[in-house]
């Protein structure tokens, strides 16, 4: 492998990883607090992308690329975030809240049900075809030597990085963040501390879903908008989040990037057929878990008896 090819793979892997990281961050938010796999997260992401697409196209009209498209994009993003936040909170109210005291798997099933409802409603309402989400900016690739990078790739990476930092600050430094951590550890005791657990959970869903919307829109620029867009990417992002360490924000980011790099380099370096790239990626992730059962960023805490 030439040096240029190496760096190209690196860049490809990083940006694919950036996409996983972007989704994983939202995933880990909800997952970290409620400890259940919100299967519908990918579908909220999809809903956010559709809303973003419609708003953006509506606002943009026929305007050429320029300041207006950027503003329109930004507005579309905000509206979509708001929409997704409300959607996420509503889903929580209706489908998960009644199951809070129940066994761990009941909300998982409910979430699977919600996922079916969302993705198929979208397919029914918006059709089964993919739609293009036009770039609001000039996405002409930049050449650095033989390595090519698009502005969008840089955007994805920087947004996920910024989101990670903001989230981390939020969870570590704010009262709401503290309340979230306490809620995730023990809801009953959190209430004893005066924490309004219902509100915390609603907030968590709102934030997680708004993040999903951001992810959905940014991904849509590259991957188009379609009803099942959240499923596979969402699942992989979730895997990444867990491998990073459940509920760990830096872990989610890192896990996402790692998965991207694995998918790229796993097959690029060893000359393994590209068809097996998932095998390599999942295989390495399993190995990582076996070596570090708490995830990459999880702390080893043996249970004290």
């Amino acid at each position: 492998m030439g040096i240029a090819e190496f760096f190209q793979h690196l860049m490809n892997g990083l940006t694919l990883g950036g996409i996983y990281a972007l989704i994983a961050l939202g995933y880990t938010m909800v997952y970290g607090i409620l400890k259940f796999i919100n299967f519908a997260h990918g579908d909220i992401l999809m809903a956010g992308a559709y809303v973003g697409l419609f708003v953006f196209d509506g606002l943009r009209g026929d305007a050429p690329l320029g300041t207006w498209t950027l503003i329109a994009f930004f507005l579309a993003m905000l509206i979509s975030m708001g929409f997704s936040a409300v959607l996420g909170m509503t889903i929580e109210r209706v489908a998960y809240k009644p199951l809070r005291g129940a066994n761990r798997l009941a909300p998982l099933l409910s979430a699977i049900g919600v996922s079916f409802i969302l993705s198929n409603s979208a397919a029914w309402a918006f059709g089964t075809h993919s739609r293009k989400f036009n770039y609001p900016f000039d996405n002409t690739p930049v050449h650095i030597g033989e390595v090519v990078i698009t502005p969008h790739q840089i955007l994805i990476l920087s947004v996920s990085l910024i989101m990670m930092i903001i989230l981390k600050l939020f969870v570590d430094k704010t009262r709401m963040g503290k309340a979230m951590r306490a809620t995730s550890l023990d809801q009953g005791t959190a209430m004893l501390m005066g924490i309004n657990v219902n509100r915390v959970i609603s907030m968590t869903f709102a934030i997680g879903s708004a993040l999903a919307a951001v992810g959905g829109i940014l991904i849509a620029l590259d991957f188009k908008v379609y009803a099942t867009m959240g499923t596979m990417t969402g699942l992989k992002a979730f895997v990444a989040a867990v491998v990073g360490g459940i509920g760990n924000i830096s872990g989610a980011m890192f896990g996402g990037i790692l998965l991207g790099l694995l998918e790229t380099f796993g097959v690029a370096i060893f000359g393994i057929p590209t068809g097996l790239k998932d095998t390599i990626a999942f295989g390495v992730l399993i190995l990582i878990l076996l070596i570090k059962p708490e995830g990459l960023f999880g702390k080893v805490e043996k249970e004290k008896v």
Partner: protein
Amino acid sequence: MKELLTIDDISVSYGNIKALKQVSMHVNEGDVVCLIGANGSGKSTLLKSIMGQEPLDSGSITFDGEEICRAKNAGAKQGKRSKILTTDLIAAKGISLVPEGRRVFADMTVEENLDMGAFLVRDDALIAERKESMYDFFPILGARRRQKTRSLSGGEQQMMAIARALMSGPRLILLDEPGLGLAPLVIADIFEKIALINQQDKVTVFLVEQNARMALRASSEGYVMENGRIVLSDASSTLLENERVREAYLGE
């Protein structure tokens, strides 16, 4: 003297087990009141009910003149809207509980646990000050402040649960067997501390304790519970002399 906490004729059940049967009692502001009783008599259930953690079948609980818990449909007839405060709102009224089984946030450090105890306090300087006084009182906690609570010894966790409950600066503190798992010296310290916060900080104390002798000595009023009912109540000093109490709870 003002009644801070009034428990009026409450019943609580788990499925078909009646854990509390028409319990009435009160705690006056500024007092230390203790509740003693055998295993399974319903003491913990009573404390949990005060915190709104167990729904009432009947009766109501009033704190500082305001009803905080009421049986679901009681009062509906009188046209009152059935308002039941959730645990977090009850905590916000100034009641804090040292729960049975400690219920520490195992994955948080000692320091973070104390911070959580002060969740309702918005004054950072005050929080810091309270933390320091907790570390003074429980030096071992100070030494372990950056350690995950999970890895503390049982007694250390118990100390932390007490410290955490004090962090919010409550008006009423409910202690469910605070001496559980503590070394004799530490228990003695804790009872001293209880007296101290009661006198200095004017915190009202409601104490559930197996060590009946110490509890009765530390308190001014005492209640005895058997099978979900209050069977005796009197000044603690009188109870200490009570024949039945001596036999059943003081192990004499």
